[in-house]
């Protein structure tokens, strides 16, 4: 009994980093090095890029900060709350320029043709990474325990942590 209690307590420590708030973010040279190249040609022998872990993909605080910045920096002006408008929707499964964190980072940092502005030098780098984490969360690409469980905005898809439907949806009747 006692052991089980201790084990349970230890288990809760697994969730410690979920809400971890790091306020002093150092600009990371590594993150910039790993942003996308415009061409696939590289000098020297071919080496696969070292994949960077998005620094915030598992951090609930950073994802919610990204959500705040998403409207502060007027991303909502074109993408709405992920549903799209002038800009493409971000909550669907289509990725024009890739769904990897560093690809999303490059999209924000460098901009993309036909309208996406480059935010390089306009947003501190760690905030761009927070935006990356939030953009990933829009299409459900972050762990459920880190995702924003209670978004206030209109949701196209079901909320990330919503309970499953109690009554399964009925199959549409076959056309006769």
């Amino acid at each position, binding site marked *: 009994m006692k052991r089980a209690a201790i084990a349970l307590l230890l288990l809760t420590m697994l969730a410690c980093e979920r809400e971890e*708030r790091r*306020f*002093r*973010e150092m600009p990371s040279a590594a993150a910039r090095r790993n942003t996308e190249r415009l061409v696939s040609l590289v000098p020297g022998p071919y080496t696969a890029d070292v994949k960077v872990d998005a620094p915030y993909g598992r951090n609930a605080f950073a994802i919610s900060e990204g959500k705040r910045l998403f409207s*502060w*920096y007027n991303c909502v002006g074109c993408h709405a709350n992920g549903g799209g408008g002038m800009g493409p929707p971000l909550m669907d499964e289509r990725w024009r320029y890739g769904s990897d964190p560093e690809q999303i980072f490059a999209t924000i940092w460098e901009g993309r043709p036909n309208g996406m502005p480059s935010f390089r*030098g306009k947003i*501190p780098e*760690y905030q761009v990474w927070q935006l990356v984490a939030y953009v990933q969360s829009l299409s459900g690409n972050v762990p459920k325990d880190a995702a924003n469980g209670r978004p206030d905005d209109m949701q196209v898809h079901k909320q990330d942590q919503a309970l499953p439907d109690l009554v399964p949806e009925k199959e549409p009747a076959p056309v006769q």
Partner: protein
Amino acid sequence: MRGIQSALEPAGVQAEQIANLWTVFLIVTAIVYVVVMAFTIAALLRRRPAIVSNATSPAVRNTVSAAVGLTVLILFGLLTASIFTTRGIASVPDRAIQIAVTGKQWWWQVEYDDADKSKRITTANEIVIPVGVPVTVHLRSSDVIHSFWVPSLHGKRDLIPGKRGQTLTFRADKPGVYRGQCAEFCGYQHANMSLWVTALPFADYARWIEASRQPSRIPSTKTERKGQDVFMSSPCPLCHTIQGTAAGGKTGPDLTHFASRRSIAAAMFPNRPGFLGGWIVDAQHLKPGSQMPSIPLQEQELQPLVTYLESLK
């Protein structure tokens, strides 16, 4: 008790009434305390009579009735004093200066509205009011519940997100600088969410209003011009406004007349170049969690930027 932030040192009519009520409560409750303690000590020292007296003897009954009656009377008196004070400070004069104060994590946005849009003033963490004229502050919040409290001028009132019509009307009767503070826990930097209220003679107040309506000062030296370029090319304008320039961000404090303010970071630091430089490059060290990000600037960029901002009188 001397201080710029003390409810016991009222600088206005509302705060004075609150202070008077406080004094009445203090005197009455102090007397009650002393009397009760005296009776308790007397009862402890008194020798128990040899014969246990009947608890329902007329003497005991009369004493208890008198004590209960006196207690009710005193409480009723305090209630009456409280009601009259509340009514006194709640009366709103017809002509009051209207100022909107919005609480944000963790600073105060202050707006002087005007039908003519070009005459609107937006500033931060500082309210300038004239002496002897009633002022109504309209309290709003853009995130969580805050509470506006300038003890020298009035009591506190909450700022509730989404709720309009929260107002506080006060009048400063002595010119001076008074400090206020958020009085409702609102997050990590709640303790560092303060503001200044400056009460000026009416002529000075009118001059301040006129000066604040002007667009920002145009940089005149080479360093100031470079500083402005640094400001415009760095993340600053995404959140901050400087009237008369292209910077029009709305989420951070308006910096149009930044140099005329007493302090930075919601009255946390004095407004001096050293503090400002530190604030720009590492706000997250000085005030962790605040919405001001640390901006990694080179020395040759930071110096002109600070010079430019400190020139915005």
